[in-house]
């Protein structure tokens, strides 16, 4: 078979790179996002076909078989996964990508004598291994295979420093003489470093780490592109590395934290883990019928969904309630905190699944001024993202996190399982305010009862 000439190969890779840029660009708006993603998928297909027709390859049946295995394993999982489990799936796919980059770098070591190429190999090995192991721990935390609380032990910072120093040492030797044995050692050190990096990260911060590791894998892929002299890998990897970095920072800002604070907070003891103590102070609780009357005769209702809604799989009932209220002439919006759910933007996906049109999903900065004009703010399974302590209590773990200003609404209704505090483990003063009413119970059950009562009005 004659191979494609280098100019055509370069042009096809360039087209694939442009597809990836369009894919990311399309994801800026819900209207263009799906088309963008399809363009990205087309670019990937184009690149894979190009490599088969432009490089002299042995073992082609094996390679095609391996691609088939990978597709057959991943596609059904991607198709069937529940939307609530999205964060751990993204972590998993990210980890295997990092692992693949590390393996490619390892195998290229014997093919080169150039110290600069070896430097790129060392970088890919280390960062790819960190991403693989770190994503594995992230997956275990989100899947509930291990505790989501920060895991620390006294020697952790020292151990981390030793591992990193050893990795730098091994890396320098590999760059100088290309030792395969030390490259393997570097791979193992990278795996250990990845585990140590993610273990101390707790609770609500875990999803930020997924985004950071995503950027890491992108950089590893870019470096492997330098190793192989493949421009497409360089461009695609760098795009992901850069966009992942921006995204990580945007998410951290939405939580009022710095990325460094998230990664190393637990090292210094200032973690997000709090108490789970139950408050004894009085609150006003109410019946589903009373809540239905409040909602049914309101002009404007803003629903604030939180992870409790997702856990109870109540997003469909919430969407139905919104429709029932709109049918009565009430204006209903959903106020989405950037970190509502288990990962930033997760709540939007869950409500989109329940057929809520994206125009009704309001971002925090857009909806906050409107709480003043709302008759009722209905908080379903959310706590920390509406806790005024983020503004008023400087010692609080969530201090500085931007919150949804539900306290501005005339009435605030909380649907809660119990008085237990949220993820961050701090009490919410708002629960004790005079305009606040509580309806205890599972989010879906409560919503179903309220929905029935609204329909009966």
């Amino acid at each position, binding site marked *: 078979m004659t191979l494609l000439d280098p100019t055509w190969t370069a042009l096809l890779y360039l087209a694939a790179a442009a597809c990836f840029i369009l894919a990311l660009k399309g994801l800026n708006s819900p209207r263009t996002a799906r088309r*963008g993603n399809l363009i990205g998928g087309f670019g990937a297909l184009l690149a894979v076909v190009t490599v088969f027709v432009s490089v002299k390859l042995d073992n082609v049946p094996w390679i095609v078989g391996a691609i088939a295995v990978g597709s057959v394993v991943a596609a059904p*999982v991607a198709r069937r996964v529940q939307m609530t489990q999205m964060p751990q799936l993204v972590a998993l796919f990210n980890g295997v990508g990092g692992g693949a980059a590390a393996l490619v770098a390892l195998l290229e070591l014997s093919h080169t004598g150039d110290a600069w190429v070896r430097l790129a190999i060392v970088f890919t090995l280390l960062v790819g291994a960190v991403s693989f192991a770190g994503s594995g721990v992230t997956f275990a935390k989100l899947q509930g295979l291990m505790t989501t609380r920060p895991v620390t032990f006294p020697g952790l910072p020292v151990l981390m420093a030793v591992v990193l120093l050893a990795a730098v040492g091994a890396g320098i030797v590999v760059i100088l003489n290309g030792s395969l044995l030390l490259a393997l050692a570097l791979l193992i050190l990278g795996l250990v470093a990845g585990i140590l990096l993610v273990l101390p990260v707790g609770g609500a911060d875990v999803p930020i780490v997924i985004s950071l590791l995503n950027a890491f894998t992108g950089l590893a892929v870019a470096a492997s592109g330098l190793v192989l002299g493949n421009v497409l890998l360089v461009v695609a990897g760098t795009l992901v590395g850069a966009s992942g970095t921006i995204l990580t920072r945007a998410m951290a800002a939405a939580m009022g934290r710095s990325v460094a604070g998230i990664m190393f907070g637990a090292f210094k003891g200032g973690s997000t883990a709090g108490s789970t103590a139950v408050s004894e102070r009085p609150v006003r609780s109410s019946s589903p019928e009373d809540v239905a009357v409040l909602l049914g005769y309101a002009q404007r209702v803003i629903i604030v969904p939180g992870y409790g809604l997702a856990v109870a799989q109540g997003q469909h009932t919430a969407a139905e309630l919104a429709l029932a209220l709109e049918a009565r002439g009430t204006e209903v919006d959903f106020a989405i905190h950037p970190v509502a759910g288990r990962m930033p933007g997760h709540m939007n996906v869950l409500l989109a699944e329940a057929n809520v049109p994206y125009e009704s999903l309001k971002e925090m900065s857009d909806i906050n001024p409107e709480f003043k004009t709302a008759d009722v703010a209905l908080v379903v399974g959310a706590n920390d993202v509406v806790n005024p302590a983020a503004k008023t209590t400087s010692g609080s773990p969530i201090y500085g996190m931007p919150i949804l200003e539900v306290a501005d609404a005339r009435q605030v209704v909380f649907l809660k399982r119990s008085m237990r505090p949220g993820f961050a483990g701090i009490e919410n003063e708002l629960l004790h305010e005079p305009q606040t009413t509580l309806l205890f119970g599972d989010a879906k059950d409560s919503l179903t009862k309220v929905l029935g009562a609204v329909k009966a009005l």
Partner: protein
Amino acid sequence: MDGMSLLTITVLAVFVGFEVVSKVSSTLHTPLMSGANAIHGIILVGAIIVAGQASDPWVLAVALLAVVLATANLVGGFVVTDRMLEMFRGRQRPPSSVVSSEEHAGKERGR
């Protein structure tokens, strides 16, 4: 390609990466993360090249493992992102195109 050209391309790609996601709305943070995740699955190209040049069975085995992992990243990433984005619908469109086409088919039969 020489080192200087690669460096130029890398630096420009950094700026493009910063630019395309700097104005993204937080509504789409999850699909964006998942979509970017799918793009780095393109390491599959590298894995295929390495596997295609392997002569030692051990090297081939490791390379094929890389191919499987990279394919899972690439295919799984794009499929799951598409599934998420499919659910984002505007106000005007019907809730499900499947339902409307079934209704249409029902009318046809009724005629």
